[in-house]
């Protein structure tokens, strides 16, 4: 008896569902972030910026007159290359996301980009500067400038600013970003000062804390300054150990220094140092300042470049989805449409500067040299444009 009733009820429910007009499909956006692992502050910034964007659009997007609900699927890649690839695989096949934002660091973005490209899902990395992330991958895009640009920017800056001729470099040989950037810097430096002008080119592997042997060697080589394109946790250790070895020369960094946590870990040792990055929070104006203030009010600290670039990436994604005109619910069609729309964005006015996109999906944009002030703030020093 009761089973019959249940069957009847079920029948009506199904019939009703079939009759109701089809609800617009949910737009799922995957976020592949470094939430645990070596660089958790990067993952945190990604997550916060993504959630701020979702809040800004009110959880829905209007595309061609129809309003679609938007959902974020945030996954942790543990700051490991293989995990980032697995996360992409899961986001694409299991969660069925339309487009992926992330991963941030090149070590994760290079392998993850391969997966996204193979499975024909558009992906945009907000922070990865290594050329390999997008190279020969029509489905993969990025928001920051590239290391072949950043390396010479730093080399030229040091030459002009200090007039040095002998460089020392210390980098993590096991991670794509530092390794790539160290090579591009070396190339850039030697173009200006000739072969052999990088007098020390020393490396370590991820997870090391003791850099005393490498630093002693660099000091002994007669280098006039140190370039170290490392992440914030290593920056603190490298700078402090250099000072403990009695080496008091300028130490110059790259965009990976721009974390909100660099100064917290490094303290006074890092005051007065320079690094190249995507934007300077101190003295920002317009939309950039609005974003910084909103972020600061919500999360209690000034967003680093990761947060700002993630914000820009989400707006590029937003524009691409809107340019699509219609979301059909057929993933293969929609993904293709979003990819084509993203590839068609030639100019973008973001909070990290104006970008012009190349055929490869890479933006051409200006870099900023930032000085860490005596209050531990990242202050704008100069801008370098291509």
């Amino acid at each position, binding site marked *: 008896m009761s089973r019959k009733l249940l069957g009847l009820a079920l029948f009506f429910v199904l019939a009703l569902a079939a009759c109701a007009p089809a609800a617009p499909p949910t737009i799922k956006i995957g976020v592949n972030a470094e939430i*645990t692992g070596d660089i958790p502050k990067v*993952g945190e910034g990604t997550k916060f910026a993504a959630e701020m964007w979702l809040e800004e659009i009110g959880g829905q997007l209007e595309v061609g007159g129809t309003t679609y609900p938007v959902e974020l699927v945030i996954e942790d890649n543990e700051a490991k290359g293989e995990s980032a690839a697995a996360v992409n695989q899961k986001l694409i096949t299991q969660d069925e996301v339309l487009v992926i934002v992330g991963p941030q660091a090149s070590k994760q973005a290079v392998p993850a980009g391969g997966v996204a490209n193979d499975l024909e899902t558009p992906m945009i990395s907000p922070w990865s500067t290594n050329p390999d992330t997008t190279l020969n991958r029509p489905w993969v895009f990025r928001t920051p400038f590239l290391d072949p640009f950043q390396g010479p920017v730093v080399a030229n800056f040091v030459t002009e600013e200090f007039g040095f001729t002998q460089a020392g470099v210390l980098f993590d040989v096991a991670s794509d970003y530092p390794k790539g950037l160290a090579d591009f810097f070396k190339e850039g430096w030697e173009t200006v000062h000739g072969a052999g002008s990088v007098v020390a080119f020393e490396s370590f592997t991820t997870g090391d804390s003791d850099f005393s*042997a490498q630093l002693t060697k660099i000091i002994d080589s007669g280098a006039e300054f140190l370039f170290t394109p490392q992440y914030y946790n290593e920056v603190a250790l490298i700078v402090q150990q250099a000072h403990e070895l009695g080496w008091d020369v300028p130490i110059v960094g790259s965009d990976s220094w721009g974390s909100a946590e660099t100064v917290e870990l490094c303290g006074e040792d890092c005051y007065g140092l320079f690094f190249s990055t995507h934007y300077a929070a101190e003295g920002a104006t317009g939309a950039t300042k609005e974003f910084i203030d909103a972020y600061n009010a919500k999360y209690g600290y000034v967003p680093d470049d990761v947060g700002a670039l993630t914000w820009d990436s989400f707006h590029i994604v937003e524009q691409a989805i809107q340019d699509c005109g219609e979301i059909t619910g057929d993933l293969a069609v929609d993904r293709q449409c979003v990819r084509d729309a993203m590839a068609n964005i030639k100019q973008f006015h973001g909070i990290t500067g104006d970008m012009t996109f190349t055929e490869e999906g890479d933006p051409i944009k200006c870099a900023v040299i930032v000085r860490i002030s005596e209050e531990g703030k990242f202050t704008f020093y100069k801008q370098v444009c291509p």
Partner: protein
Amino acid sequence: MDFLLQQLVNALQSGSFYALIAIGYSMVYSVLMLFNFAHGDVFMVGAYIGFFVSGGLLALDVWEVIGLPLGVQLGLILVLTLIVSMFLNALVGMAVERIGYRPLRGAPRASAAITGLMIGIILENGNLALLGPQRRAFPELIISATIQLGEVSITNKKIMIVVVALLLTLGFHQFVRRTKWGMAMRAMAYDFVVVPLMGISINKIALMTFALGSALAAAAGILFGIAFPVLDPNMGILFGWKAFVAAILGGRGSVLGAGLAGFLLGFIEIFVVAFFPSTMRNLIAFGIILLILTFRPHGFFGEPYSAQLRL
């Protein structure tokens, strides 16, 4: 010459950490014929305990009342931190033994070995879950001062670290050589089956071994925090592996051997970088160690295994 002296100083500091962790590995291995793979993570826990204990002590109000000079006050806090953290971490080590290893006393050795790996993962991820993934900056317990000897820079931190590590190594060596408890440990290392029949409780000795090893790991963790003031939940993995290598290199049953091998590992790592491209450091350093083990398979101070080989 100055270059070599500076690298020698670097190597002494680097070796100090390996030595203290390796002794803990070596003691457990000697007494229970067990690879305690969780030991690197016990070192991590020790560093975090030191972080919280020193943070708590620094926040106390009594310091203003007593009114000691800052240097003395920090020194006192350092000593207290070392003592309290070693004690607390000893409890952690005992818990690891009681919960992780004792139920598996009769189980195949391989099961006990993977237990260690699992406890290690639980400690890392437990820390991640409790404290979150962000790095912690270890408080400055020594006002850094650099002593310049010609071209060689030595900080007061480095001197303190090496001295404490050497004292603890020699102290434990004496403990194992000269006390009754130490004798019980050596007896257990000699024969794991017959010695319990003589009225020595294997459970007690095992607990004590873990407690002592973990206390040393806590000391290593605090010294590490002083030298490299960035703590993260995975800091023990790489260190644990390397210290394990040092423990085997030192030889089974020798505290002094493990300590010296720890320093040797520090020397090899640093001097490989000094003379070869640093990209090849691990390749060459561990190649050398493999070569040493080829010619001395029992390590430097280990005796050839007796008939009671249980692996």
